[in-house]
């Protein structure tokens, strides 16, 4: 299988979907001439022209709302919010409009909209450009939330998100754009709501998504050296949630560590932990644990920034404790 960078995989998905369906178009800040701050849309202006690859003014609320309006009349817009932090400027249009329109219509309208954005730490961008805010969208009925960790997943899930008839918040990670991985040569669509076992093991389950999947895999390598076989379950999409896979893995190992970069307080991990304990309590060998970002705004300095999110060491240590604990 050929290797692609995460950003190249995303670009390939956009390119293929734009070539396939003239209703698909892109809008966002600095995506056309410059090809996007993270170079995902590079070259697409030349292929599809300024009518379908549109540079907008810096007006997140209105250009996000415009994507909603275009979707309402049958287009398939992919709007890019440069940082997930900027989505907060467009929350009325995302939460009060996009997430509600289909419901309010009694199910008579469809809103085929993708909001592409990216979050996470890693570039020293500090408190307003480094947040992990998936819990905000996870909380709102009417939105799907997709968070790919690998180039292949980014490719296959973005294609499915564009073909989905409902609003999808597609959250990339700034640390992943330059990560390389195999992507199938033939066209592939990955369904939303299917978790993926990135590693199989019988002793402990590490549940994660986005960038933290890679740290979980690194931690699993270390655990294996100590004779502990960790299973790494990448949820890939939080809404829809693959409850079946989550519970199957929890029941299999009886020991679950949930790892996410977003702050622990009010994080998605708490909801997943509750779900596992409600549904699989009798089959758990140890309490479900969470390892998540610290409850703080993200600082600038490298040493401080890195201390805010779970490290490979912390993941391995927590997983080893869980593997040893229990009944």
């Amino acid at each position, binding site marked *: 299988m050929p290797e692609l960078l995460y950003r190249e995989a995303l670009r390939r998905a956009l390119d293929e979907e734009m070539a396939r369906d003239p209703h698909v178009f892109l809008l966002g800040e600095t995506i056309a001439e410059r090809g996007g701050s993270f170079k995902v849309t590079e070259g697409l202006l030349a292929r599809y022209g300024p009518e379908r690859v549109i540079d907008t003014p810096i007006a997140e609320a209105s250009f996000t709302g415009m994507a909603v*309006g275009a979707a309402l009349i049958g287009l398939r817009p992919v709007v890019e919010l440069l940082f997930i932090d900027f989505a907060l400027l467009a929350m009325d249009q995302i939460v009060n409009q996009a997430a509600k329109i289909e419901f309010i219509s009694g199910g008579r309208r469809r809103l085929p909209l993708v909001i592409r954005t990216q979050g996470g730490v890693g570039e020293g961008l500090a408190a307003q450009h480094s947040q992990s805010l998936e819990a905000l969208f996870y909380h709102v009925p009417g939105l799907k939330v997709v968070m790919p960790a690998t180039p292949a997943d980014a490719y296959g899930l973005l294609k499915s998100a564009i073909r989905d008839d409902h609003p999808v918040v597609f959250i990339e990670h700034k640390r992943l754009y330059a990560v390389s991985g195999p992507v199938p040569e033939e066209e592939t669509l990955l369904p939303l709501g299917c978790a993926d076992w990135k590693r199989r093991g019988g002793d402990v389950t590490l549940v994660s998504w986005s960038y933290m999947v890679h740290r979980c895999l690194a931690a699993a390598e270390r655990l294996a050296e100590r004779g502990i076989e960790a299973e790494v379950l990448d949820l890939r999409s939080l809404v829809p949630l693959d409850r079946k896979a989550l519970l199957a893995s929890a029941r299999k190992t009886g020991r679950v560590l949930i790892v996410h970069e977003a702050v622990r307080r009010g994080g998605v991990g708490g909801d997943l932990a509750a779900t596992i304990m409600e549904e699989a309590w009798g089959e758990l060998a140890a309490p479900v644990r969470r390892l998540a970002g610290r409850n703080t705004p993200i600082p600038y300095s490298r040493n401080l920034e890195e201390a805010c999110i779970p490290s490979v060491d912390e993941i391995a240590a927590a997983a080893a404790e869980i593997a040893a604990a229990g009944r």
Partner: protein
Amino acid sequence: MVTPAPDDETVLPPRELLLTMYRHMFATRRFEEVCLDFYRQGLIRGYLHSYIGEEAVAAGACAALRPDDYIASTHRGHGHCIAKGADLRFMMAEILGRETGYCRGRGGSMHIASADLNHLGANGIVGGGIPLATGAALGIRVRGGDQVVISFFSDGASNNGVFAESLNLAGVFRLPVIYLLENNFYAVSTPIECATGCCELAGRGPAYGVPGICVDGNDAIDVWRETCRAVARARRGEGPTLIEARTFRWGGHHANDPGHYIDPGRLAAWKERDPLAILRRRIDEPGAVAAVESGVEAELAAAIDFALNSPEPDLASFLAAIEP
């Protein structure tokens, strides 16, 4: 229904179009009166924002549209909906929370929408519909065609950030959208003089490269004429127009607001300029007007009957559609 706007200001719309506008205005007036009555009887829940006094804006503006053009509406949206051709039965059923309503009882008064009518939806968020309308205009541009969009909103919404953003976006992209600012001089209870340092709202358009014009919002013909011009500009690819239509709300913000803050003398003066009476005088055919009115009364009676006899939404199917 579309007539090019005459340059001669004395030329009236064709008789048939005048009667259509009057039918929409009279239907809105009577529909709102019935709704207010139902609200007082406890048959309608939530908020009910009456359009009484402002009917000429929706009727005049929508008379300049083709059926395949779009509108985006507001919380005070019954008049827009009727002027876009809505069926009173489905409107009344929605407002009474019935399964047969436009939104199957999920939306209510503030959220009526219809894909069949190219009505993008009323909106519970002041200003929320402005980007949606602007985006529909962008969508028209992307897929090709000469449809246009009217974005209805209020003086209150014109102080919200999305107004500025959207006018700027439509101006730079020359989108086929008409911003129809219904200036009724109050944002809930706050008079416009207390909400902005510049009360000449049409003047905000040119700041974004968007022509701005002020019309008499109680004269349906004046609204129609300027909207026709704006629509023609938009269809030619010459971009958006901001139309400020000055009008007045005959009551409080909603059915539960007595509107004590409205100066009685000012209200009386506006009522002297009842938009329905103004248009009746322009039509000047009492027989034809009476025929329109009796037709509307029959339609409204049938709508009430239909809505009251419609079932409530089915709870089991509602619950079954919710993901765990």
